[in-house]
């Protein structure tokens, strides 16, 4: 619990620090909102040529994009400072973290917050509103609860992916670009129905990196779509469990990596 309190203190300090440059924060957030909106135009452009992609309508794909996008933006907001890990290792700042009386993961994550992700989260929320307006969902209490679960699990799964992916820099300090393949790549993958991908891509980016549990499987339940690939129905409800396991595995990988970490010596 001490870790959580420390994390909160550090994050509040970062928010206050960024809030000092208010104009810059506002511009960043608006820029993040506007430019991520362009990103969704690509999806709309694809749908000018067809009615369904892999059996999914434009509103249903927008659901994946919006629901997954909110989770990703939240992970980006809180843990994307992990992208600085290679810089910390290279400059030796990480060694300083090792001798402080707090966990390294907490320190790296709380090193900064990406407040402008609020812009991306807003854009994803609007896309989700667009999706819900046209997807003709038969609402039940279960489905409404699932909407909350999607956002929370998405944020946790993407955070786990970010943590585990960042460990590559302990192996090779210049390898940090490979992390993008599963973080940003995972988000890109999660924006489209699993049905359009070949079996290997599906296994690796959908299950090993569990992005299929971010939006796809919960969406099957909310949108009332049939289970694909002969999977059992309970998989649609597995996201919270997957999120918890993913976080556990990711923090374990981080701690193992840090235990084997040797300073770059420069």
């Amino acid at each position, binding site marked *: 619990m001490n870790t959580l309190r420390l994390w909160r203190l550090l994050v509040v300090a970062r928010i206050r620090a960024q809030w000092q440059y208010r104009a810059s924060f506002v511009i960043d957030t608006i820029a993040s909102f506007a430019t991520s909106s362009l990103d969704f*135009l690509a999806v709309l452009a694809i749908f*000018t040529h067809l009615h369904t992609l892999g059996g999914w309508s434009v509103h249903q794909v927008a659901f994946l994009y919006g629901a997954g996008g909110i989770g990703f933006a939240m992970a980006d907001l809180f843990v994307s400072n992990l992208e600085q890990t290679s810089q910390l290792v290279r400059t030796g700042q990480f060694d300083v973290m090792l001798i402080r009386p707090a966990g390294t993961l907490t320190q790296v994550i709380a090193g900064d917050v990406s407040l402008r992700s609020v812009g991306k989260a807003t854009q994803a929320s609007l896309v989700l509103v667009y999706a819900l307006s046209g997807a003709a969902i038969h609402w039940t209490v279960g489905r409404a609860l699932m909407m909350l679960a999607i956002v929370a699990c998405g944020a946790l799964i993407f955070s786990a992916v970010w943590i585990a992916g960042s460990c590559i820099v302990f192996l090779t300090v210049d*390898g940090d*670009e490979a992390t993008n393949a599963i973080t940003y*790549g995972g988000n890109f993958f999660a924006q489209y129905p699993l049905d359009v991908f070949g079996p290997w891509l599906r296994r690796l980016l959908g299950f090993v990196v569990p992005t299929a549990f971010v939006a796809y499987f919960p969406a099957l339940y909310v949108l009332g779509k049939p289970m694909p690939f002969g999977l059992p129905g309970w998989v649609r409800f597995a996201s919270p469990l997957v999120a918890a396991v993913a976080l556990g595995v990711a923090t374990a990988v981080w701690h193992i990596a840090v235990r084997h970490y040797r300073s770059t010596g420069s």
Partner: protein
Amino acid sequence: MRGRLYWQLAKCGWRRQTTYRAATIAGMFTNSVFALVQGAVLVATLHAAGRRIGGYDTRDTLTYVWLAQALIGPLAIFGGTEIAERVQTGDIATDFSRPITLQGWWLSSDVGRAASAFVFRATPQFVIGAVIFTLAIPTSPVRWFAFALSVWLAVAVCFSLHFIADLAVFWTISPRGAISSQVLLMLALSGMLLPLGFFPTPVAHVLRALPWAAAVQGPIDVFLGHGNAGFSLLRQALWAVALLSAARAMAAAAHRKLVVQGG
């Protein structure tokens, strides 16, 4: 004398890019993953549409996707914060007092970097795609020559766009907004996210006229033999000249704004 200096700078840029082998491999891995995902989505789109889109069949589309991902390295699509960092730390003052212009200095080193990235990153990256899929590869030497020219013009365009976004720090103080917006505009409007031919025709026309298209869509059009290569090269050249001039003017304005403190 000055020509030699530019040459030396380009050589340094080349050597620096070549040094980080792990980074090159990591980058290629990431670009391959994106190409696989994007390729799958676009091929599914073509199948669902049941026809060519914007002149692209499956082979052209896959070539497009792998070539676009291969060009990320040479064009440094995600790069270009170094100058901004130097503005923030004040090191830019040193750059301004060099015997050649700020732009000349950074452009020469970027050309060397791009050449190295083209050989050691873009080429193997594209070969990976060509091994997995059947891609459209030009047979005419003229087309290859035009493509090489087109890539160089794209490097000049990208360099200028980065340079302008970086120098914006002189006015915005925080580097985040301008640079991240530039990168995202590049992704969305250059054809990196979606070939411009996949957009509705009027939108595609507008996007093709913008500078970002000169960075990614331009070279790929030439490679695939879509449209008139001469016209495409001319458009790229015009953007390259316009943006290099704009960047030069911006550097001059930044120079006037710069106040060096201390003794």
